[in-house]
């Protein structure tokens, strides 16, 4: 069940009216939201609802044991093994479903190179949608309880809802326990600000996904990436820029809609994107792109590795490892590892540059933005291409002279528009919501109706799944 579909619209209206009719009974409200979230998840594969429940029970039990140990033996209690157990269990689940096939295949290739060819047990494992998101959420909950950053949840219901809440379940944002658990403890309130903001984010997300991302994907990006050798340099360059816009509009649209849907149910999620292509350095890019993942990697990987506390060399190694593992998080393929290594490598160069030049400005901001954007685009080729071979073909095709067959005026407008939206005022949606919150409900209702009609009228038949569902 995808957000921009009629089926989801009907489902959401049912959830909206039922939850607000239960607003005086917070426990029953949460129970209903949990059941609705499981129903939502079961639309992909009902068997994986059991995995979701198992993961939630596991994290709840380990966090409860950690909290009990701290209560009995004080803050100095030895509980590292419990945290390790929790993290390992989560990684085991993730590793089995996501990386088993990849590692077995690599091991088979490695053994074959040494002349030990073996038929390793390859399993056809279906990847549960959103598994990377809910396991990361589970890890952050256990570690935060261990670090004393968040108290353990008061009930199993809260942990289950934390991990299963349908707006963020399948593609984030990765909402921390410290953000959501306190909201679950009291009956939520819906204010006009939240409602207006939520409705505008949903409309804006629908537009980005179903108009910009879908059109670019179907008419330009997919055909060119499928067979780069059949296209000229202009078409290939347009497909690369188009993919940069497509992935931003696709993923940020999901985040916007998730934040908007949660807001209409009375909950607040953190921002996940902040005009990433405005970044003038790779470090700045990662402060603006998929913020919930980059901050997760910082807090639970980069900092435990030592962060920047052990000198320049160690910080460079740590940031490189973090980015490579971040690449691996996106998928079990060498192209994702290379993508992570590219981002890590550029950040290392930036750190070394800062250590030499200090805070002095070595290039104009515009040049920094252009260079960063093109490095990011280079990374997107690795990210999007099915294989290294296709990625290399894309790069080689950038020098091929030939007729322009794929790029049309509309696609050019969509690419330029998708990039230009990064230069809108940084809080444009919030500003519009602030103005519209005083409007009568009939005015806002008609405006929302017109926005959805516009999207519905121009959308292609059917909706492709969001790119980040596969992660």
């Amino acid at each position, binding site marked *: 069940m995808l957000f921009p579909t009629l089926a989801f619209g009907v489902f959401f*209206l049912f959830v909206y009216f039922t939850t607000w009719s239960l607003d005086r009974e917070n426990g029953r409200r949460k129970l209903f939201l949990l059941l609705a979230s499981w129903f939502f998840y079961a639309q992909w594969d009902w068997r994986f609802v059991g995995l979701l429940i198992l993961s939630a029970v596991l994290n709840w039990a380990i966090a409860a044991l950690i909290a009990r140990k701290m209560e009995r033996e004080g803050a100095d209690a030895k509980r590292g093994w419990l945290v390790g157990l929790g993290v390992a269990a989560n990684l085991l689940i993730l590793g089995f479903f996501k990386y088993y096939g990849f590692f077995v295949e690599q091991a088979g290739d490695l053994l074959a190179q040494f002349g030990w060819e073996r038929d390793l047990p390859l399993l056809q494992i279906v990847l549960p949608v959103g598994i990377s998101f809910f396991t990361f959420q589970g890890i952050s909950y256990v570690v935060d309880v261990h670090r004393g950053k968040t108290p353990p949840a008061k009930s199993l219901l809260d942990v289950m809802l934390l991990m299963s809440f349908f707006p963020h379940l399948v593609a984030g944002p990765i909402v921390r326990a410290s953000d959501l658990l306190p909201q679950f403890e009291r009956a939520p309130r*819906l204010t*006009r600000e939240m409602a207006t903001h939520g409705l505008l984010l949903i409309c804006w997300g629908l537009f980005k996904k179903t108009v910009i991302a879908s059109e670019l994907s179907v008419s330009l990006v997919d055909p060119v990436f499928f067979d780069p050798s059949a296209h000229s340099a202009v078409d290939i360059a347009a497909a690369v820029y188009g993919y940069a816009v497509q992935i931003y509009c696709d993923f940020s649209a999901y985040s916007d809609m998730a934040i908007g849907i949660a807001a209409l149910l009375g909950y607040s999620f953190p921002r996940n994107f902040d005009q990433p292509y405005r970044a003038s350095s790779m470090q700045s890019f990662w402060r603006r792109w998929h913020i919930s993942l980059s901050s997760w990697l910082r807090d639970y990987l980069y900092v435990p590795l030592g962060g920047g506390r052990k000198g320049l060399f160690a910080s460079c190694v740590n940031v490189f490892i973090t980015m490579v593992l971040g690449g691996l998080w996106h998928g079990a393929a060498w192209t994702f590892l290379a993508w992570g290594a590219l981002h890590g490598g550029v950040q290392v160069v930036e750190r070394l540059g800062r250590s030499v030049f200090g805070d002095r400005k070595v290039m104009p901001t515009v040049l920094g933005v252009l260079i960063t954007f093109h490095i990011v685009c280079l990374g997107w080729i690795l990210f999007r291409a099915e294989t290294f071979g296709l990625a290399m073909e894309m790069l080689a095709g950038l020098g091929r002279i030939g007729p322009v*067959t794929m790029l049309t005026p509309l696609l050019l407008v969509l690419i330029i528009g998708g990039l230009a939206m990064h230069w809108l005022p940084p809080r444009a949606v919030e500003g519009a919501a602030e103005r519209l919150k005083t409007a009568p409900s009939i005015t806002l209702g008609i405006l929302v109706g017109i926005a*959805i*009609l516009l999207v519905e*009228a121009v959308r292609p038949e059917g909706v492709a799944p969001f790119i980040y569902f596969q992660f």
Partner: protein
Amino acid sequence: MTDDRDKTGQGGFRLDPFPTQGAESPFPPLYESLPPRDPPSDWIQSADAHDLPTAPEPVVERVNPLVSLGRFAFPPGPPIDDEGVAARDQRWTTQTLVIAGLFLLVFNAVSPLNWSHQQAPGWVSETVEKVSEAWVGQLALLGADMPRHGLREAWFGAKDARFPGQTPAPERGDIE
């Protein structure tokens, strides 16, 4: 009865037991009809007070007699508490959603029909299809499908546009 006048020994009147200020007049003070004083100048000591801006004239609010009557007949309630505000905001949001839904039901009526075409045959999809067909047909008589159709035509027109020298787009059939 005693006379206190000489008790001071100074030949004066002792006023202590008596009010030292006159009783308040039952009539409104006369100075209220005078224009308000200029605000004191705190930056140009030597400036003439008459050169300085004066306080604005008090605005006399004229209340519409009908409004007065309305307020008399239906006095406004006390300000609502937090729960009242929350309930009001929730009601406002619900109304917004309902209005948006009704708007789409009229101007985007074809959406449930398209949805039913994408489903596997069954009781639900066939029922939705039949009801939607009747609904879409009736609304088309009123022209409610025209905004969507116009938008769609404009969109496909933009999609079919090509740069000079490019092969023209293939002809389309029905755009719905």
